[in-house]
């Protein structure tokens, strides 16, 4: 049935018409191209006034809290630094052994020896001491909120959006208010890390408590449990695995935030080491220090994940005391032994300077050699990506195509040709009954031609709001319009578009490339086995560290940021694509096989359509990861909202930083809701359920 338009399509055609009108009028009406300065609401100024007031009149309270929190940090820091390295290393190995077995213990030992050898022991211990205080706090706060949300629906409705904001507002944005309230020092890192790491604990607590099977609750009730008993002896133990997963996520989040928080300096920890060496362009050193963070993250992740996985294993009680408590016994005896030995042999107490060995110099030389000798190739790669991908997306074909960049001028003939091809494609799609595809082609073509920054804001706002409405219903449409409206009236729209452009390209590439790899991995066990450890490593790596190799080769700039974002955001795309394809209902695959589908037909007509909702969840995660990395990428010189946040932090301008931060959170939340809503809709249509 060629050319069938329903109301939906007419709405979209209307949107396109309005967009074209806006485009043609923007030279007449300047306010369309650029939101007028006079109308910008001075919200950031108001926020600064409020903040100043709070600091002035309530400052004593926060400083008191800060003072109280300083003590435990100092204590742990003192203990970790004072203990002989052999004792600390041994205890960590025992914990790893208890959590997951001797392999992890060996890995832990190697990691700790690496820290010692490179000479970053005390920095590592300083980071650990901050994590050691922040994690219990985050778990406590997270568990409390989780329990509250579990018992009260109203509380949950308040808590959940709060968590969204805490997790999507870029971390740099809330470092500053904390700094202003709690004063300079390690406490800032602690508070920031607690704020950032308690949300996953809340989520896992709610999910875990909800997930306890009703029969277990009923059997608890029928056993005569009082409300308190039901909670502590039935619900909590049954939800333990999920709770420990929450602990795992909270710990990882805490570590990454502690590292990020070191940007304010004065902490003498490993994150500061990475940052200061990057700033001094000592890439060898920063890579070595970054490795420490990566190793630390991997060990902590495996240990806490191991504890969660083992939470279902219990020792049979017919064994002896020593057997049942073997980990404690080994830990106590071993620690005592090493402590005594350390008093006798100084080398077991403090790692001798002469044993330290840093290949940083060699690495720097090697890097210099590569950069000097392959300068031409590196520059070519950068240029190609910039002229043919990044620039068109940023300022559009109309600006990007010039004799200098593409080798020719954009003549009228070119323009007419472009328009003709686009219309032909869209019309063909509509003729085949795929009006949605046709509309998508039109909108995409307009975007590419004029560029994100060349689009009048009312048109883009309209496109997004209608998109939200069509995908997720009226509430999402209105929410999208309001959120983007906030970005417009606070005057950060141009920067927001720069963020969207950079992150958008990175996400698109990550998603396409990642999905391709995921599809391959789903059909080939060897590929899957090779890809998995890479994914695990990339995912546990604190964001900071990912920047280092790219900065080393490509120097600072948007291209480096792009590569770093892709490196991080590609992980969920791969994972979800593989998971989606591997967990398809086998009866459908068998049916398709018996009908006689070829491999190609099977993939494109059966597997991918069915796995699409899961892949869309992957896209959702890809976007979230992309935005998270974008924030960090501000360090290597980007121009979007993330840069404003960063500048706000370094200038001490609370209002500006927080507004930009909220802007980023708005973009993140809108895209999250849209992709989620789409995925859910598809799932329901297909009658699938996704775990």
């Amino acid at each position, binding site marked *: 049935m060629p050319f069938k338009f329903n109301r939906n399509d007419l709405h979209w055609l209307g949107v396109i018409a309005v967009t074209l009108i806006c485009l043609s009028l923007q030279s007449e009406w300047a306010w369309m191209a650029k939101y007028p300065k006079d109308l910008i609401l001075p919200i950031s100024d108001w926020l600064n006034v409020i903040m100043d007031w709070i600091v002035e009149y309530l400052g004593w309270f926060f400083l008191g809290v800060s003072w109280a929190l300083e003590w435990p940090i100092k204590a742990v820091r003192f203990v970790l630094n004072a203990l002989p390295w052999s004792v600390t290393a041994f205890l960590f190995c025992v914990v790893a052994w208890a959590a997951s077995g001797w392999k992890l213990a060996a890995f832990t030992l190697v990691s700790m020896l690496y820290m010692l050898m490179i000479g970053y022991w005390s920095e590592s211990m300083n980071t650990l001491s901050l994590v050691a205080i922040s994690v219990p706090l985050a778990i406590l706060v997270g568990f409390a909120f989780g329990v509250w949300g579990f018992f009260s629906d109203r509380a949950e409705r308040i808590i959940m959006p709060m968590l969204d904001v805490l997790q999507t507002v870029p971390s740099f944005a809330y470092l500053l208010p904390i700094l202003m309230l709690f004063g300079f020092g390690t406490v800032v890192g602690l508070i920031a890390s607690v704020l950032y790491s308690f949300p996953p604990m809340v989520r896992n607590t709610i999910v875990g408590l909800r997930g306890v*099977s009703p*029969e*277990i609750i*009923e*059997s*608890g*009730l*029928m*056993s*005569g*449990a*009082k409300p308190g*008993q039901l909670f502590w*002896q*039935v619900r909590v*133990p*049954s939800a*333990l695995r999920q709770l420990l997963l929450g602990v795992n996520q909270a710990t990882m989040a805490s570590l990454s935030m502690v590292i990020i928080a070191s940007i304010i300096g004065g902490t003498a920890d490993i994150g500061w080491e990475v940052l200061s060496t990057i700033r001094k362009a000592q890439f060898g050193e920063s890579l070595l220090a970054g490795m420490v963070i990566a190793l630390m993250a991997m060990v902590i992740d495996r240990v806490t994940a191991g504890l969660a996985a083992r939470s*279902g294993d*219990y020792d*049979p*009680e*017919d064994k002896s005391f020593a057997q049942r408590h073997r980990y404690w016994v080994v830990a106590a005896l071993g620690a005592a032994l090493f402590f005594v030995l350390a008093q006798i042999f100084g080398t077991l107490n403090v790692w001798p300077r002469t044993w330290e060995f840093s290949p940083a110099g060699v690495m720097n030389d090697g890097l210099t050699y590569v950069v000097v000798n392959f300068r031409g190739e590196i520059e070519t790669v950068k240029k190609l990506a910039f002229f043919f991908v990044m620039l068109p997306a940023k300022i559009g074909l109309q600006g990007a195509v010039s004799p200098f960049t593409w080798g020719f001028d954009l003549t009228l003939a070119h323009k007419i040709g472009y328009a003709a091809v686009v219309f032909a494609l869209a019309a063909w799609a509509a003729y085949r009954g795929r009006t949605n595809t046709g509309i998508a082609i039109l909108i995409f073509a307009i975007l590419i031609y004029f560029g994100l920054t060349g689009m009048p804001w009312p048109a883009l706002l309209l496109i997004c709001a209608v998109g939200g409405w069509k995908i997720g219903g009226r509430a999402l449409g209105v929410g999208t319009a309001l959120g983007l409206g906030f970005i417009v009236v606070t005057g950060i729209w141009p920067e927001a578009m720069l963020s969207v452009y950079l992150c958008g390209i990175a996400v698109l590439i990550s998603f396409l490339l990642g999905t391709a790899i995921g599809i391959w991995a789903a059909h080939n066990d060897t590929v899957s086995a090779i890809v998995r450890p890479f994914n695990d490593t990339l995912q546990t790596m604190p964001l900071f560290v990912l920047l280092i190799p790219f900065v080393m080769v490509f120097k600072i700039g948007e291209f480096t940021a792009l590569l770093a974002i892709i490196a991080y955001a590609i992980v969920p795309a791969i994972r979800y694509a593989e998971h989606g394809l591997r967990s398809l209902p086998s009866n459908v695959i068998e049916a398709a096989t018996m009908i006689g589908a070829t491999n190609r037909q099977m993939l494109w007509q059966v597997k991918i359509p069915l796995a699409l909702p899961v892949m869309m969840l992957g896209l959702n995660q890809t976007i979230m990861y992309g935005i998270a990395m974008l924030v960090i990428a501000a360090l290597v010189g980007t121009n979007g909202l993330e840069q404003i946040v960063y500048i706000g932090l370094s200038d001490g301008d609370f209002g500006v930083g927080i507004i930009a931060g909220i802007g980023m959170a708005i973009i993140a939340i809108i895209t999250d809701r849209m992709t989620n809503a789409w995925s859910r809709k598809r799932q329901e249509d297909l009658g699938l359920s996704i775990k």
Partner: protein
Amino acid sequence: MKTPTGDHTDVKLSCRNVWKVYGSQPEQFFDSSQGRVEDAHKHADAIRDADHIVANADVSFDVHVGEIFVIMGLSGSGKSTIVRCLSRLVEPTAGEVLLDGEDLLKKSDAELIDIRRHKMGMVFQSFGLMPHLNVIDNIAFPLKLQGVEETERYAQANRVIELVGLEGRENNFPKELSGGQQQRVGIGRSLAVEPDVWFLDEPFSALDPLIRKQMQDEFLRIQSKLHKSIVFITHDFQEALRIADRMAIMRDGAVVQIGRPIDLILNPADDYVREFTQDVPWERILRAEDILDGAAKPTDDLNKVAAGTLVETLLPALAEHEKGVIVEAEDGSTLGVATARGLAAALAGGCAPSSTAQEE
């Protein structure tokens, strides 16, 4: 062997006009009349028309002391809801639940906890075991909640473990056990507090057929020792026949028929009940006392059999002796004579109407 007559006189648990309605305002359909309505059917339809869900409609039955009362129904018939109303895991919308003559629905939360701790035990379809506790701790869990001393608790748990046949498994965790063993733990836990009333909600439905039969035998063995008052839920008619003293068949939240299995088979209340009774193996249900032939006179040359003898074992004798066999009660008195004609008559009573029903 259980007594088919089930002459238990004292009522242990009584369910009177219990309704359970889900929806926005379920109370609006009931005044203070304790769920008694003139026409339950009409009332239920009216509630459904008002966009509410009727899970139980005017359910009434008595469970006698020491009796196995089976509630049988297909999924969605409201059988799981009614057993939860009896234990107040689900709050009935209207009606009365009398335990030893006292209305359970009027009890405070504290009283209810006390009743559950001492008078009730419940077994669940998917076991509902605490994953973090081993076998002995799972069984002793109700005692632990009551604050019973550890030594006493374990002594009691060990007695129960012996009863349910889990010796040697004390230190295993639920996930290390097979389904049958897990349900033994569930049974053990429900018996640990020595309850008067024992609820079993489809206890064997999650088990495979062979294990299921074993567990039914085991269950009957335990009951022959303990003589609990039992409410047993199942969707399996054969299972109901095997174990029930009396049974209720439920449909759309209401009770269709209550009676001894044999009553249901011989006199099904409607076509719905007949659907179930059609395929029953008669020879394994009917007993000598059910096929008495009023026309036949006992004479000295006839063989004698006990009243509870299954027809299955009686068939050769009936085929051989035209005049039948004498049926004796437990005390040795003569009840009457069972003949082939009597058997035919009994079968005709149960079968004849169903053939017409099929023709319709």
